[in-house]
């Protein structure tokens, strides 16, 4: 049998209705960019060096193993994607990966790309259950925080790359134990992209940066605000523990 006219009419009426919105596409692209290395998803292919490709591959393969574990174990089947994101956001390796993909220099303290592969592999072997920084749901409603250092205005069409660049820089500062510099990047992101695609990552980073800067009380207040605003965030527990784990 084939479908009757009513069913056909319904299908025709609904056919385009499930496509992602522009916001969906931008959000996904940002997550993938973090996940795979910015060059892979953000369209910047020219600077994707062999070394960064190797580091990215390690991260991606970790995700595949995580996915397999999620499919067969007690964790959700999507653990793999979250693990990738956690590694990408948490690892100094990915900071190097992302940093190489943008024209803005991240920081003087960014780890050298040559170490990226080793770092990613180490993470892959030890952090398959990591979810501390996994973030499937960036919140576009995060309030702006001010004041922020002056940054050059973003170029048209480069918003996502700029967002990534700032947060990668903040990560690199954190890895280098420089909470104040990380905080400056976080503030800059909040100022320029108050409703940015990566606002949730930004707000989680702020808590860690405050801890690292020795501002434990502020960090705890920011952590409480984060959890209140995003009770379902997979980063919530890590944010609440940020200062308790020796970061301050």
């Amino acid at each position, binding site marked *: 049998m084939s479908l009757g006219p009513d069913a056909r009419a319904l299908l025709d009426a609904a056919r385009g209705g499930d496509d992602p919105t522009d916001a969906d596409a931008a959000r*996904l692209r940002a997550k993938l960019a973090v996940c795979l290395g910015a060059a892979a998803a953000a*369209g910047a292919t020219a600077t994707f060096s062999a070394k960064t490709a190797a580091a990215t*591959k390690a991260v991606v393969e970790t995700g595949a193993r995580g996915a397999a574990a999620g499919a067969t174990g007690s964790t959700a089947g999507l653990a793999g994607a979250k693990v990738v994101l956690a590694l990408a956001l948490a690892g100094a390796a990915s900071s190097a990966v992302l940093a190489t993909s943008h024209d803005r220099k991240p920081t003087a303290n960014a780890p050298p790309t040559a170490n990226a592969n080793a770092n990613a592999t180490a993470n892959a072997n030890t952090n398959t259950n990591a979810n501390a920084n996994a973030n499937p749901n960036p919140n576009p409603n995060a309030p702006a925080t001010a004041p922020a250092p002056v940054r050059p205005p973003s170029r048209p069409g480069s918003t996502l790359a700029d967002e990534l660049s700032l947060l990668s820089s903040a990560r690199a500062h954190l890895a280098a134990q420089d909470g104040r510099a990380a905080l400056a990047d976080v503030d800059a992101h909040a100022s320029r992209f108050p409703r940015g695609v990566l606002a949730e990552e930004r707000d989680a980073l702020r808590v860690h940066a405050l801890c690292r800067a020795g501002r434990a009380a502020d960090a705890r207040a920011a952590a409480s605000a984060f959890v209140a605003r995003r009770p379902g965030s997979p980063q919530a527990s890590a944010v609440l523990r940020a200062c308790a784990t020796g970061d301050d």
Partner: protein
Amino acid sequence: MSASTHLRIAVESMDVEARPKEAPRALPVIASFDDVYRDELAFVWRSARRLGVREAALDDVVQEVFVVVHRRLETFEGRSSLRTWLFGITLRIVRDHLRAVRRRGTAGDDEPDALGTTDPSPCDLAERSEAVRILHAILDELDDEKREVFVMAELEELPVPEIAGVLAINLNTAYARLRLARQAFEQALARHRARDVWRIR
């Protein structure tokens, strides 16, 4: 496009140029990851949704699909269409996801992810056509086998032989399953109309 894909294309191009002209070789067309993402995000997104992934989990599922695509794109040999290949990846990941959701004993709407910001806003819901909501409701009434074949054949209009390949079933089985899926869809639609909820015309 990954660096290695770039590299492979470059190497193969050099090979062809160095080879005597009387032995030309058709190069496989390797789409770049960027191209695949740009062109096929909507296809993967709506397919995952129609296969049963809830709004709150769509981001994660679609992201996982493209992570796999990124890893495997170079192994795509063009024996099926790109869309069929993508659908196969999407289908496997959606099945894993739905299994995990069902193991947790929720339909997906109540899982923690639903608290996230990927929930449709009231504006989104107002804009979403009633036809789409009815379509989802009817698809939810189909069992997984019928749902999969119906989405592929009737919504994405993939050729039945390729559908059979994706599902690893023989062609007759695929046609039979599609026939049953259409029947089930019509019956579910009739039930919806009987409840007077179908007002798209």
